[in-house]
């Protein structure tokens, strides 16, 4: 008779961490463990993100423009003659007729005031980024807080915040910006703050609130309450961290919206700034070169840059959407 050996089945436990990893973690202080786990999250999300070529294209464009922004001061300091190439006060003496078409000296030509277009383009990149990111941060900070607070407390606080949001979205966004800028001249920082406040208390707040509502009813919130967590503790330690992916996503869209709004305002000449892409097109318009296809370099590079940077952030946002919302992924 064959020997019947007893085989003890090994239970298959779902391991998130390997044995060695776990040992290492046991010895680290808590804050380091958190850091480590966060880094792993980022690494995994990056893998998901990079699977989608769309996001990579967007990211590529952003890096390209960031590079341009960094390159400009270097060029100004060491390569270019500031008298000629300064984006605001430079003047190109070698050309007789301004605006001059692209040439070896001025790769994108000059504008009606004799300033180098490429230099203007690169110089503005800095402020576009600054504006976009500042506005986005303000929008998302306000939006996330509003959303979380409205969802968590409900009742009259919710109603007030939502009615406020209603009032804000009733206003046509671009038109209001135009009206405000007609009232007092805005510079980039003020514009960023205004955009941030309007978007944060408005549309973004509403969207994040509905997400916060789904988080509020989860078991761990109940657990936290039972364990005696105060309201603010729960909001800041539990709800908001779970809203982060969505917030981050909306930051991308906020940047797009901010850059776009700034471009529109500059185009109408309503902004108190020294140089921006929108302003470049405005200059072309006031000098009468707007509808002239022959002076394409006055409009095409600026318009294209606005478009490219806006769509870059949007593409990144869309790719992030697939990371944040697993149902959209392919199997």
């Amino acid at each position: 008779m064959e020997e019947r050996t007893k085989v003890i089945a090994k239970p298959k436990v779902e391991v998130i961490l390997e044995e060695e990893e776990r040992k290492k973690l046991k010895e680290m202080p808590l804050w380091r463990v958190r850091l480590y786990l966060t880094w792993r999250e980022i690494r995994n999300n990056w893998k998901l993100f990079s699977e989608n070529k769309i996001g990579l294209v967007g990211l590529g464009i952003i890096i390209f423009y960031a590079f341009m922004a960094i390159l400009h001061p270097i060029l100004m300091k060491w390569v270019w003659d500031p008298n000629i190439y300064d984006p605001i006060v430079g003047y190109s003496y070698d050309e007789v007729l301004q605006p001059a078409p692209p040439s070896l000296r001025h790769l994108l030509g000059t504008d009606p005031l004799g300033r180098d277009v490429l230099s203007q383009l690169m110089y503005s990149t800095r402020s576009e980024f600054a504006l976009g990111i500042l506005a986005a941060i303000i929008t998302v900070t306000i939006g996330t807080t509003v959303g979380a607070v409205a969802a968590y407390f409900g009742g009259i606080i919710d109603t007030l915040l939502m009615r406020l949001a209603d009032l804000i979205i009733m206003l046509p966004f671009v038109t209001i910006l135009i009206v405000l800028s007609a009232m007092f001249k805005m510079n980039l920082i003020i514009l960023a703050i205004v955009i941030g406040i309007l978007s944060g208390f408005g549309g973004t707040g509403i969207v994040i609130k509905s997400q916060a509502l789904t988080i509020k009813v989860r078991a761990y919130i109940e657990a936290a309450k039972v364990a005696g967590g105060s309201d603010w503790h729960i909001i800041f330690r539990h709800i908001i961290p779970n809203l982060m992916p969505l917030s981050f996503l909306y930051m991308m869209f906020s940047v797009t919206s901010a850059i776009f709004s700034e471009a529109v305002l500059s185009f109408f000449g309503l902004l108190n700034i020294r140089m921006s892409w929108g302003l470049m097109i405005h200059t072309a318009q006031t000098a009468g070169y707007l509808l002239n296809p022959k002076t394409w370099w006055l409009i095409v590079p600026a318009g294209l840059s606005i478009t490219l940077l806006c769509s870059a952030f949007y593409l990144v946002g869309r790719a992030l959407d697939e990371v944040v919302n697993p149902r959209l992924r392919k199997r």
Partner: protein
Amino acid sequence: MLRYILRRLGQIVITLFVFLTLVYFLLEAQPGDYAQTFLSNPKLTKEQREALKAQFGLDKPLWERYLSYMRSLLRGNLGISFEYYPRPVVSIIAERAPRTILLFLTAQISSFLLGFTVGKILAWKRGQTFEYVLTISGVTLYTVFTPWFGLMMIWIFAYTLGLFPIGKFVTPTLWRGAPVDANYVFIRILLSAFISSLVLFLVLLATRRLNLALRRGLRGAGVLIILAGLLAYWLPSGITRYALDILYHLILPVMTLTLINFAGMMLLTRNSMLETMREDFVMAARAKGLPEGMIRDKHVARNAMLPVITSFIFSIAFVLDGGVITETIFSWPGMGLTLLEAALSQDIPMVMGGLVFTGTLALFAHLIADITYAYLDPRIRYT
């Protein structure tokens, strides 16, 4: 449901009221005295100036001015424009609004149709390159700098190819000596469009219950009747070529706006479809042996379109917003342009009037969106 609508209408009135109060005081808070600017118009005589002061109550304190404004608002009087004195604000809105509505409603509907159809197909056939190309081009178009893109379109289609007019909404030479003015034609166009859509909708509703062959036949007949009706009205009216001229000027801006806006709808539809496709009833539909097209349209799209339609209706409220840019580029004299001018020239009554217009539109669009959503999704019933 009726109670819900009534309640919402009540809320709309309150919100509108709060909104207007806020705006009024916001405008008053501006640096600089708009009254002075207005009154310093050299064309006015001293008596006129005093009369105007009294009429507008410009010498009265803020409180009183506010109250009298609100009172006349309730009577439907939005005041008299400073810039276009002595035309009342309401008449200016009545003149400009139809132009904006025609342009943007057409554009919104067409971008919705394009975006929805493409998004539907995109979600259904998930090919690698196909999806990639459409998404990138869609997004690029969506985030394109509108003035720039508008100009490009004009350059290509109007300047270079000469296919469409460069701007404005009428060809001045054609209209010289015309029996009617542009607004007359505008209103007629809007009305015919509205009535034909209504009739079409009713036909679709009435033929729902019938079997396939009969349904198709009746609907085809309905469409033919509507076309016949339109022809019967327009051909003998004598203003057809004016209407056609307006429509001719409409094509390029609508094309531009559609290209810019369709991607938002497309991506939203695609996402919504993808989420719906994972539902169990989709597999059940396939198990029932239904043809692919029917599963895609009747089952998936019908469920997926809920958030898309809501977004669409909601976006109608913002018709005015994007309007400013487009109307400037295409020189289309609508509400957007008017509001911009008013803001820049401190024509306060006009600004207030314009904002009343947008605000009301936004609130009603919101309400209609909610009602439509309830109609489309039987699970949602308001008490």
